[in-house]
Structures are given as C-alpha cells and as structure tokens.
C-alpha cells in the first residue's frame, strides 16, 4: 500500500492519522481550536470501517477517564483538547501515568491563563513536560512543527506509549492545528488483535486477575514504584531523544525553538544568514525527553543561545539546565496568542544580543 497525498488542516491530519494508525477509540469534548478533530472523526464514522469507537463525552474529565478505561483494556485510545480542557484532564492523566497505561493525548495549545484566547500559544510547556497533575511522573511529549508531523506523531506517539506503558502527548498549537499543508498519509493499519498481558479483558482460569490501579497504601511499596517510574524515565531519556538541527555547524548564535516557533526560526535563520550573521537552530522534537546532551555539546561552540517560544519563557529553563552556565541564554517570544514573526526574531538578535 502506498502513502496518500492530501491537503489538510493539522487537526484533520490528527483525526485521519488516528484512524489509519488502527486506533481503537477516541473520546473527546469540543474546544477551540481543535474541534475539527472530533468533527472529522464523526463525519468519517470509522466505527463502520475499522471498528474504531468515537464518542463525544460530557466533559474533558469524562473523556480522559474513558481513555483510562479503554487503555486499561489494552486498547489504542486517544483524546484531544486545548489548554483549558487539558487542565481539566490533568487528574485523569496522572492516574493514567500512575497506572502505567499507554495512550495518546493531543494538546492544541491556545493562550492563557484561564479562558485566555483561542489563538495559538506555547504557554503549556511546563504543564506538558514537568508533569501537569499531582505526583512524580512524566509524559512522553512530541512537538510537531508541521501538518505532516501532526499526522506522523500519532503513530509514533502510540508506539512510544505502548513501548514504555506511558501516556504520550502531542504538544501542538492553534497555528499547526488550523493551518493547511500537504501531508503524506500512511496506509490504513489494521487494529491490533493482540491483548497485552496486563490488560483487563476478563480473567480466564489460566491467569491471575489483572488489576489496574495507581493506589498503594504502603509507603514503602509506593516508593519502590516511584523508583520503577524513574528507571523508566531514565531509559526514555537515554533512547528516545529526537531533535533537528539547521545550520548549527558554524553557528555563533543558536535559536532553540519547537513547533510553530521553530517554523518561524527556520525563516529567521535564512534572513540572518543573508545578513552575514552565523545563526543556527536546534528544534527539539521530543520535549520530554529533552535534547539536553546535544545542547550541552553545542554550548561549547556557540556564543549565545536564544530560546524562542510563544510564552513568557518556559522552555528556556530546560535550555539553561542543559547548558549549565556554559553560555548565556536569552528568551524571545510573543504571548497572548500572537505568533512571533521571523523579522522580529532577527531584529531582537541584532539589537538585544549582538549589539546589546
């Protein structure tokens, strides 16, 4: 089967990719700017073709708990939302992490705090990569910078989630969710018939009962579990770091940017290079695990790093931890739902950093 070329919104690409990845279930609740995902799925009606269940829940809270229930049956399930809705899901997400269940959560980020704006932002970085809900846990966080990656990371997210029995998140934003680009779609994958050994599907006489829970009243046992999670996260940090470099070889200045900001910075690199400024871009593709080792290596070569993000400066903290004082790190970005433009990124570099 060959790949198929389509012109799609990022949100539509997530929906179509979920069907094609052989997802078993989608549970969601409408919220701008990602409602197209649920709309697309209802129109596509995959329960008639692949057998995929699609349900509009009564709330984001119900939706994430449906994901918990489905994931605990060993099924490939996902939910999608945007910032205020993702905040509501945090309780369910920490239970999913605590029960070590695989699932996919997509956050098409909008500006905040509170009800905020419906325009794109990157101000949910802390929430996505540092935990988000209560307790010591991490999600595997993927940051798409194109409609193509919106589609590709659905399959990748499921693969990583099942490999590590850990929830995975696609941290997108309203720009990538809403913009249209060409996208190569993978052929339809069959829904998996295999049942993981830990899944609750009814206890046959041949095995002990399976219990999905995040509760352990014995603090000693709970600490052993916490240590098990840390060991898993360390393995993820060792094996799953993904990033992309642009013109880093001779760079004196380095932009660090993900998602929409990375797309902006690709243009900024071009503009600055045309003016003789040696600048490069490191684009983290995984935000957890973070490409810290690579940034630390690059800190030996560049003069300054600039964390470009549509937030008050969140990812900059991970850049600072990565370079560990080797080079100065600055932040530049717009907030409130405003997308940074390539010219102002270059202007900031020239006036505040090179000239400053």
């Amino acid at each position, binding site marked *: 089967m060959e790949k198929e070329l389509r012109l799609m919104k990022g949100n539509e690409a997530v929906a179509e990719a979920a069907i094609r990845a052989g997802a078993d279930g989608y549970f969601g609740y409408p919220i701008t700017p990602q409602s197209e995902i649920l709309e697309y799925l209802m129109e596509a009606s995959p329960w008639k073709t692949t057998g995929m*269940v699609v349900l509009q829940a009564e709330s984001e809270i119900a939706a994430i*708990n449906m994901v918990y*229930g489905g994931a605990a049956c060993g099924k490939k399930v996902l939910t999608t939302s945007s910032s205020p809705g993702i905040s509501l899901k945090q309780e369910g997400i920490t239970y999913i992490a605590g*029960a070590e269940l695989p699932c996919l959560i997509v956050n098409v980020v909008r500006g905040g705090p509170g009800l905020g704006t419906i325009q794109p932002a990157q101000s949910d970085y802390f929430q996505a990569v540092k935990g988000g809900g209560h307790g010591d846990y991490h999600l595997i966080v993927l940051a798409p910078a194109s409609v193509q990656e919106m589609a590709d990371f659905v399959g990748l997210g499921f693969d990583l989630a099942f490999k590590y029995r850990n929830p995975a998140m696609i941290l997108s934003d309203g720009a990538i969710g809403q913009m249209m680009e060409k996208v190569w779609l993978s052929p339809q994958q069959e829904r998996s018939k295999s049942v993981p050994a830990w899944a609750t599907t*009814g206890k046959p006489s041949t095995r002990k*009962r399976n219990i999905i829970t995040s509760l352990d009243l014995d603090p000693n046992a709970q600490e052993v579990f916490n240590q098990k999670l840390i060991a898993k996260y360390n393995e993820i940090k060792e094996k799953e770091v993904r990033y992309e470099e642009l013109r880093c070889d001779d760079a004196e200045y380095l932009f660090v940017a993900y998602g929409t900001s990375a797309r902006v910075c690709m243009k900024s690199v071009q503009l600055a290079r045309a003016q003789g400024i040696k600048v490069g871009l490191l684009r983290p593709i995984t935000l957890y695990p973070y490409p810290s080792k690579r940034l630390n290596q690059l800190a030996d070569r560049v003069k300054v790093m600039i964390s470009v993000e549509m937030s008050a400066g969140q990812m900059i903290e991970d850049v600072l931890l990565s370079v560990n004082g080797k080079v100065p790190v600055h932040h530049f970005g717009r907030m409130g739902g405003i997308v940074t433009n390539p010219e102002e990124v270059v202007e900031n570099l020239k006036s505040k950093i090179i000239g400053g």
Partner: protein
Amino acid sequence: MAEATGIKDILKPENLVYNKTKIMTDNVLSYCPGCGHGTAHRILAEIIGEEGLQSQTIGVSPVGCSVLLYNYLDIDWQEAAHGRAPAVATAIKRLLPDKFVFTYQGDGDLAAIGTAETIHSCNRGENILIIFINNGIYGMTGGQMAPTTISGMKTSTSPYGRDVKLMGNPLKITDIVATLPGTYYVTRQSVHTPANVRKTKKAMRKAVQYQKLNKGTCFIEIVSNCPSGWKMTPVLSNKWMEENMFPFYPLGDIKVPEEKSAQ
C-alpha cells in the same frame, strides 16, 4: 477424643449450608464490623460465580470505603478516580461490548463528585450495571456529610445535624436517573436482613440478564449502614436505617422494564 470425633462427624459435605463463594478471595475485608459492604460484595461475587461470568467480567472500583474492592473479588478490575467510574466503564463496554461491565460506587463518589458522569452514562444508556451503596456518609474519610445525608442527620461536617437551609438537601439521585431514557432497570434495595439480601441478589441477576440483552443502564441502589460513621452498634445502625433512611429512600423497584410491567 470423643468430642473431636463428633466435629469430624458433622463436617461433611452434606451438612455444609454456607461457604465462601469461589469468586471471593482470601483477603481480609477492610470494612468495619457490621458494615453492609461485605454483604453486598458477597452477593455480587455469588452472581458472578453462579452466572459463570468470571472470565467475562471487568469491574470498576471507586474511591471511598470500597476503594480496595479489587482485592476481594477474583476478577479483572480497574480502579477509577473519584466519581469517574461510569466514564471508565463506558469506554470498557464500548470497546469490549461482549463483556459484563459494572461499577460499584458510594454516595460521595456517585452522587457528589461524579454526578455528571453518573447522569450522562445513564442518559446515554451505557450498557453497564451501576451498583450504588448509599449509607448517607463519607465513611473512608471519617464520617463527613454526603450528598445523601438526610435532613437532621449528624456527621462530622454537620455536627448539629444536616440543616438543609444551610447545607442543601439530600439528593435522590436514583429517582433522577430513573427519569432518564437510557436507564432500563432502576431499583433500591438493602442487604441488612436475609430477605433483603435475597431481593438484592434477584435484582443483580436481572441486571446481568438485561446487560446480556443490551437493554441499557441498570442501576441498583443499596441503602446501607455505616456503624462507625453513624456512631452506633451494627444492630442499632440497622434499626436506625429502617426508621430514618427507608422513609426518605423507600425500598423497591423505581423503574422496571415495560414489557414486564405490561404483563
């Protein structure tokens, strides 16, 4: 020696009138003496065993006194977040439509924090069984006022008795879900006498049959006691329940299948 021989003579299969059901595990129950949870668990275990459903059942346990329910019945379990069991069960049943799926929830879980999940699962007619233990109190956290605490009832957060003007009214959520088109069978029972145990078991068996026939949501409320939370002896708590809880939460079927009532 003669005495020991006597016991041996009595301990014969033909003399056995009561036994641990196969589905109950050997774990020691965490409940206070005289609590109705253990009886409700046993009825559920008997039904699952007698109907041959062990390999077909996925249970969803709540947050509350029965949070450790998954330790007591030898079936596959999912432990849900507080109030979310019906949402969890919704997905299980939709993804595994041939399995027997039930939730077991207390009043705080089902009728306070989980009200939305309860109402909407019932309204969608999710093909699951919801078992609702109503003892009018938050037992696990130490006896605070519940959504179902009756007027005047003393709890640790209504120490002078529930003042409905100040604290709101007790919620008859079972009567509410009975009005929804998605519910098929709604009943209110108790487990404090052998006769009531038999009625509750009959209700559970019906719910199992209805789920097999994809009839929609079955909802069984069990009005139960909480000797520790109510600060009464088990015997006195059952008497208090009969005199005070049953007038407000009367036992019996609230919604029965139409074909049955037409007969």
